[in-house]
């Protein structure tokens, strides 16, 4: 009878079970994520309206986290395809904060530059830049710059809609700035420091 360790090695299990990635993601998630409680029932993937466009269903992604597959998880398009509809969240029998875990994975993928397609991360970053500059979002600037950069070939097709929005007065051509921008900036700067040290 072969030694246990040989079986483990043949199966590719060269490490002790390592749940550090799972815990890391759990701790970086808002509230008490309950990620460790996932029982792999698959309810999340079965409820997800966007699952067909995902590399991995949420269930599979969480199994990969448990297996310590850091790079594969952060390279997955799943967190970027998630539309934040919370369907999975209200159905999960273990009350895992699934949508919030997706946000955490996006943040980690951006920090470690592990994403295959920069469209979504760029959009998030542009949005954040807007908010950090004006305190409010600016739909016109956001949409036009984003399309110009990522979907230039689509712009002519988008013109009727864009013009429609402008002529109907539904797109502000200039951003609005909040009064106490300096206060917001101080808060965000301090929050960023805390984020780095925590």
């Amino acid at each position, binding site marked *: 009878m072969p030694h246990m360790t040989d079986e483990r090695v043949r199966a590719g299990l060269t490490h002790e079970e390592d749940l550090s990635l799972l815990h890391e993601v759990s701790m970086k998630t808002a509230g008490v994520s309950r990620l460790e409680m996932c029982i792999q029932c698959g309810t999340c993937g079965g409820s997800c309206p966007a699952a067909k466009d995902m590399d991995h269903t949420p269930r599979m992604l969480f199994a990969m986290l448990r297996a310590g597959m850091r790079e594969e998880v952060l390279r997955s398009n799943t967190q970027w395809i998630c539309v*934040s509809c919370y369907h999975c969240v209200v159905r999960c029998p273990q009350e895992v904060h699934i949508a919030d875990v997706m946000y955490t994975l996006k943040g980690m993928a951006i920090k470690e530059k592990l994403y295959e397609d920069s469209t979504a991360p760029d959009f998030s970053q542009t949005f954040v830049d807007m908010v950090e500059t004006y305190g409010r979002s600016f739909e016109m600037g956001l949409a036009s710059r984003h399309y110009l950069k990522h979907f230039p070939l689509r712009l002519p097709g988008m013109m009727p809609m864009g013009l*429609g929005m402008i002529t109907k007065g539904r797109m502000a051509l200039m951003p609005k700035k909040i009064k106490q921008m300096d206060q917001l900036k101080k808060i965000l700067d301090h929050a960023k420091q805390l984020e780095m040290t925590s």
Partner: protein
Amino acid sequence: MNKYLLYPGCSMESSAKAYMESMNTILEPLDLHFEEIDDWNCCGATEYLGINLIPAYSLIARNLALATKQMHPANGTGGTRTVVAPCSACYLNLAKADHYMNERPSLGEKVNEALAAGGLHYEAGTLDVRHLIDILVYDVGLEKIREAVVHPLTGLKVVPYMGCMLPRPDYQHRWSDHEHPTELDDLLRALGADVIDYPLTTECCGGHMTQIGPETAFELIRRLVADADERGAQMMVTVCPMCQMNVDAYQNEMNNYFGTDYHIPILFFTQLMGLAFGKEPGELGIGVELVSSRNVLAGIGVEVPVTQEPAAPRKKDEGLPMPRRWTKHEGRKEAVK
């Protein structure tokens, strides 16, 4: 008079200003008073949350902190602790920040440390964050709404579209159901409309995917519109600026993508309330939707004026102001066809 603090959110000032106008029009007949939170900032939508946790929650919490400063009787708010958010995404973010700051005190402490840098503080649990339709159905009540109706919307076939973020994850247990809440159905029935059963009522409109992965969004929009059409609805009714924007402004792109030909207008529930209360379409922002509701409303005797609002003048040759960071971004590998 019922007094509340109002968090309008960014889209109410631009793409969803029809929602803002119609909301303001129905407040008086229902004896409601909304006091806008002074100098509120963006809630971060779904984007900020994916970048940095503590800054994202600090951004949201600044609004909650400003609201608590304003909630004194002397400010004309009657001391209300209730914040009204008409946008489902704003509602969820504000409610979620309050909930998580409570559930995980270490998060609350860090957020407050950040807020302190701007001289602010928010004690989790101080405020009640609620959506506009929640106020209308549960505080004002359907009885009072029925009494205010002077032009019942008889014969108008509508599907109630609640969207996904409003009834989920429902931290405060506000809704009749997570998947098939009936609040919007009940309200539309109180207006006299012919409400068609709509199983997709809480399905997602695609959210921000119209910007970053349009194919995913188009499919979700197609499902919504096709089902409404199949059931004989003349119109979809929404409670959320994002839902309105996606189903309305992108309906044509979606049609181009799939080779379909749907024309289902989508209006805000406040616009239909205004019509039923005898207000003019012009006061309710009706006519600025891209899929016109003109023909459908003509069927119930409402004449929608042609609006051709001229675009605001722009200083010549001036580029749109953009944050500096944009130019530093790395290029994308390939263009999506």
